[in-house]
C-alpha cells in the first residue's frame, strides 16, 4: 500500500489547481503580453522604445495621471467623510433597523457602474428628481444646483459607490476590536474624547488606511463614471484616455504604453494594500466580547436616525428614480409625463423603437447568455484555484498572488488586451467577450470561496482519511459540499458582474457587440433616459436577485 508521507492534506491535491491556473494564465497573460508587446512597438509594428518614452514624459500624460490621482484622492476623502460616521454608528450602537441600514449600504456593491451613472443623471441632473423637488419647494424656475458633468459629479458618484466599502470594512474591524483597552483608559482617568483620540482612532487607523487604499484603487480604475458623468475631455483619467486612444485615435501602441504606465501605479497601490492588510492582522487580538450599547441620549438617537435617513435617500434615491422613470413617457421635450409601458414593449421587441432601443432585445439575450456562461465557468475554476491557494507554504502564497493579479489590471486594460487579440481573430467576437468577462470575475469569485476553504479544519480531512477515504474522495465528499454555498455565491457575483460589465466590453468591441450596459451607454449618449431606465430596471432586478440569494446563503452557513 501507500507509504505514509508527511504532508498537509491540501498539498497532495495540487494537481487539481493546475488546469485552472493554466486557463487563467492563458486568459490573462496572453492579452496582457499582447498589450505589453504593443507598448514596445512603433506605429509600424517594429520593436521600439519611442512610444513608451514619449508617453512617459509627455506633459499631457503626466497631467492625466495627476488628475487621475487627484480625483481618486478627493473621492476617497469623500467616501471617508460619508463612510466613517456610518462605521461609528454601526460599531457602537444597537438600534432597530440596523440590519436594514447595513443591507441598504451593501446595495451599491452589486450595482453596475453604468447603472450608477444613470441613477445619478436621473436623480441629481438639472432636470432630475432632486432638482425638480427643490424647484417646486423653493418656487424657482431654474434648476437649483448643477452637479452633473463636473468634478463634483465624479466625486459624488465615487463616494456613492465606495462609502459602503469604508463603512463595512471599518465597522466590522471596529466591532471585533476588544473594548477593554477603552474601558481601561476610562478607569485610568481619560475622558471619552481623549480615549477616542489616543486609543480608538490609532487602533482603527490600519483598518481605515487599508479600506482607503482599496477605495483609492477602485476610483483610480473607474471608467464609466468618468466617461459619462465627467462629460468630456476636461476630465480625462488614465482609463478613459486608454479607451479613447485605442478606439477613437486608433493608436494601439499609445494606448498600450499608457496601460503599462497605469498598471505600474496600480501594482504599487496593490502592494501598499497588501502590506496594510498584513499589518492589520498582526496588530490586534480580536475577542468575541460585544460592546454595543443603545444610542446614548437624544443626541445619539438623532445621529442614528439622521444618518439612516440620509443614507437611504442617497443610496435608494437614484435606484428608485431609475425604476420609476422607466415607466413614464414624456410628451414633447420637457412636457408632462405619464405612466407608460412603451419602453418595456420596445425592450422586449414588441414595439419598434428609435436608435439603440432596436438592439435592446438582442442586447438582453446577449448579456444573459454571456453572464450565464461566465458564471458556470467560474464554479470549477474558482473551486480548483481556491483549493490550491488555501494551502500553506510559498507555493500557495505565490498562487494567491497570481490569482489576484487580474485585480491589479483594470478591466479596461483587459479589454484592450482582448482588442489586440481580436485583430487576429476577427470572428472571435462573443467568445472573446466571455473570456474577458471570465478573467474579470474570477478574482471576485475567489474572494468568496478562499475564506471558506480556509475555514475547513484540517481535522475534518484527517478524520475522513483515517476512516479510509482517499484524497480525491475526501475532496468530493467533504470539501465540495462544505464549499457549495460559497461557490454558488461566487457564481452569483460573477453573473452580476458580467451582466453589468461595460469597461472591457466597450474597449474590446466598441459597440459591435451589444450588451445591456452598452445599449444603456448609447441611450444615455442619445438622451433617451427612459429607455436606458427600462434596461437599468432589468439590471436592478437581476442585482436584487443576486443580493437576496447571497444573503440567504450567508444565513445558512455551516457552524
Amino acid at each position, binding site marked *: 500500500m501507500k507509504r505514509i508521507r508527511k504532508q498537509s492534506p491540501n498539498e497532495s491535491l495540487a494537481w487539481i489547481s493546475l488546469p485552472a491556473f493554466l486557463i487563467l494564465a492563458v486568459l490573462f497573460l496572453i492579452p496582457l503580453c499582447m498589450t505589453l508587446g504593443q507598448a514596445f512597438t512603433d506605429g509600424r509594428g517594429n520593436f521600439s522604445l519611442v512610444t513608451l518614452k514619449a508617453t512617459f514624459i509627455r506633459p499631457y500624460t503626466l497631467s492625466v495621471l495627476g488628475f487621475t490621482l487627484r480625483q481618486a484622492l478627493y473621492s476617497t476623502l469623500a467616501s471617508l467623510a460619508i463612510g466613517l460616521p456610518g462605521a461609528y454608528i454601526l460599531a457602537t450602537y444597537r438600534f432597530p433597523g440596523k440590519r436594514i441600514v447595513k443591507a441598504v449600504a451593501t446595495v451599491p456593491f452589486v450595482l453596475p457602474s453604468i447603472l450608477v451613472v444613470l441613477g445619478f443623471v436621473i436623480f441629481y441632473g438639472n432636470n432630475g428628481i432632486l432638482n425638480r423637488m427643490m424647484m417646486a419647494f423653493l418656487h424657482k424656475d431654474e434648476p437649483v444646483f448643477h452637479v452633473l458633468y463636473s468634478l463634483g459629479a465624479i466625486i459624488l458618484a465615487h463616494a456613492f459607490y465606495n462609502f459602503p466599502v469604508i463603512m463595512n470594512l471599518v465597522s466590522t474591524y471596529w466591532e471585533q476590536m*476588544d473594548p*477593554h*483597552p477603552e*474601558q*481601561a*483608559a*476610562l*478607569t*485610568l*482617568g*481619560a*475622558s*471619552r474624547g*481623549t480615549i477616542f483620540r*489616543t*486609543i480608538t482612532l*490609532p*487602533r482603527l*487607523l490600519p483598518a481605515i488606511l487599508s479600506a482607503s487604499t482599496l477605495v483609492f484603487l477602485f476610483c483610480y480604475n473607474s471608467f464609466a463614471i468618468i466617461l459619462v458623468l465627467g462629460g468630456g475631455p476636461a476630465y480625462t483619467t488614465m482609463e478613459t484616455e486608454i479607451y479613447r486612444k485605442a478606439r477613437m485615435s486608433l493608436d494601439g501602441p499609445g494606448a498600450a504604453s499608457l496601460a503599462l504606465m497605469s498598471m505600474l501605479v496600480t501594482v504599487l497601490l496593490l502592494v501598499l494594500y497588501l502590506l496594510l492588510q498584513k499589518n492589520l492582522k*498582526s*496588530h*490586534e*487580538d480580536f*475577542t468575541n466580547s460585544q460592546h454595543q450599547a443603545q444610542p446614548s441620549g437624544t443626541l445619539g438617537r438623532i445621529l442614528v436616525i439622521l444618518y439612516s435617513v440620509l443614507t437611504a435617500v442617497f443610496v435608494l434615491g437614484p435606484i428608485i428614480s431609475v425604476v420609476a422613470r422607466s415607466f413614464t413617457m414624456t410628451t414633447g421635450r420637457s412636457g408632462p409625463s405619464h405612466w407608460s409601458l412603451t419602453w418595456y414593449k420596445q425592450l422586449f421587441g414588441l414595439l419598434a423603437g428609435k436608435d439603440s432601443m432596436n438592439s435592446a432585445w438582442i442586447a438582453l439575450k446577449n448579456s444573459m447568455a454571456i453572464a450565464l456562461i461566465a458564471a458556470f465557468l467560474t464554479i470549477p475554476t474558482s473551486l480548483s484555484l481556491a483549493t490550491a491557494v488555501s494551502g500553506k507554504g510559498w507555493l500557495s502564497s505565490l498562487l494567491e498572488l497570481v490569482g489576484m493579479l487580474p485585480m491589479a489590471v483594470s478591466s479596461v486594460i483587459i479589454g484592450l488586451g482582448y482588442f489586440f487579440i481580436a485583430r487576429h481573430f476577427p470572428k472571435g467576437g462573443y467568445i472573446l467577450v466571455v473570456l474577458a468577462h471570465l478573467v474579470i470575475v474570477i478574482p471576485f469569485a475567489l474572494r468568496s470561496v478562499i475564506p471558506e476553504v480556509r475555514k475547513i479544519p484540517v481535522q475534518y480531512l484527517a478524520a475522513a482519511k483515517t476512516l479510509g477515504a482517499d484524497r480525491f474522495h475526501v475532496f468530493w465528499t467533504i470539501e465540495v459540499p462544505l464549499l457549495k454555498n460559497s461557490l454558488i455565491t461566487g457564481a452569483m457575483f460573477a453573473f452580476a458582474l458580467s451582466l453589468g460589465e461595460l469597461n472591457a466590453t466597450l474597449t474590446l468591441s466598441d459597440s459591435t457587440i451589444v450588451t445591456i450596459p452598452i445599449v444603456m451607454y448609447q441611450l444615455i449618449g442619445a438622451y433617451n433616459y427612459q429607455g436606458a431606465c427600462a434596461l437599468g430596471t432589468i439590471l436592478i432586478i437581476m442585482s436584487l436577485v443576486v443580493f437576496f440569494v447571497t444573503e440567504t446563503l450567508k444565513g445558512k452557513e455551516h457552524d
Partner: protein
Amino acid sequence: MTEAQGLSCRLKATYPDFSLDVSFSVRRGELACIIGPSGCGKTTTLQLLSGLLTPDDGSSIMLEGKDILNLPADKRQIALVFQDYALFPQMTVEENIAYPMKLKKKSKAERTASVNSLLELVSLPEFQRRKPSQLSGGERQRVALARALASDPKMLLLDEPLSALDTKLRKHLREEIRRIHDETGVTMVYVTHDQNEAMAIADSIIVMDRGHIEQIACAEELYRHPKTLFAASFMGEGNILPYSIITQTLASEGNEYVMFRPRSGEQKIFFRPEQVTIQSDALLPLPEFLPHLEFKDAKLLSCVFQGSCYQLTYRWSEYTIIVQTDKHPKGLSAILGVRLLDILQFLDGKAVPL
C-alpha cells in the same frame, strides 16, 4: 456607612436575567478577594465600582470618606486590571504605562522615572520598548498592573487577572501581586473563581452567589466556620449528608451524648474529607474515642493518588463520602468515622449549632 477610610459600598443593579444586591467594606490597604462561581456577579460588582456600569437607585459608594457614586469612571481614581490585560496594542510598554501620567500632564522626565521604577516593581526591567504583541501572557499582565498603578489610584480592582495563565505561572504571579500590594499599600479588590488563589493572597474573602454575598471573612474562618452551605462547599471539598443519618451512625462512649433535634426545613450535616478517620482493616476497630459518627461497611469506589495524599471515594448506604488520607487503603470496605466536633449543621443552607 461609618468607616471614613477605605471603601464601603452598597450596590444594586437589575438586568433582564439577573439582579445584584451587595454591600461590603474594604479597609484602606487591605487586599479583599471576591470569589464565586461564574455568573454570580463578581465582574459586575467591579464594573459598578469602577463606574463602567451604572447602579440602580439606593446604591452608594464611599471611597476614602468621599461619595463617588455620581462620579464618571474617569474621575473615580479607581483603576481596573482586566483578565485579557487590555493593553493598548499600538503603544509600547513604556507608552502604555506612561499613559495615565500623560493624562495628568506629568513631565517627560518624571514619566520616564516612574515607568522605570514601576517596571522594576513588576520585575520587568528593560521592557520599555517592547510592543504588547511581543510579550507573553504573564508579562502582559505585569504591564497592565504597572499601568494601573501608574495612575496612582485610590483603589485597584483586578478582574480575574490570572485566569488566562497556566497553573504554575498563576501561583507565581499571585505571590507577586501580594508582594506588589504589600510594597505599594494600595487598597485592592481582587476577583477570582479559584478559592485557592483567594486563600493564598487575601486579607478577607467575600463569597458571592447569584448576585448576593454569602459570607465575608478571612480564609481560615471561611473554611472552618462557613455561615452557609454554599460557602462551605465553595471553599473546598466536603461531604453533605442528611441530618437523619445521625441516629444510625452515632457512636458515643460513656456519658457523653448529643441531643438529636430534627427540625422542619432541609437539615444537612457537613464535614471535610480530611476530617474522616478510616479503618480499612476489617479485624480492627475504629481508633476513635471522642463522640463521633461511624459509617460501617463503606465500600471503596475509587482511590486517586494526589501526591501528598490519596483521595478515596466510598459508598455508604445510598451516599457518597469523600475521604482524604495519607495511607493507601488496605481493603475494599472500611469503617469511616467523623468526630461530632468537626461536624457542621445547616438548616435550609444556613449554619446552625449542632
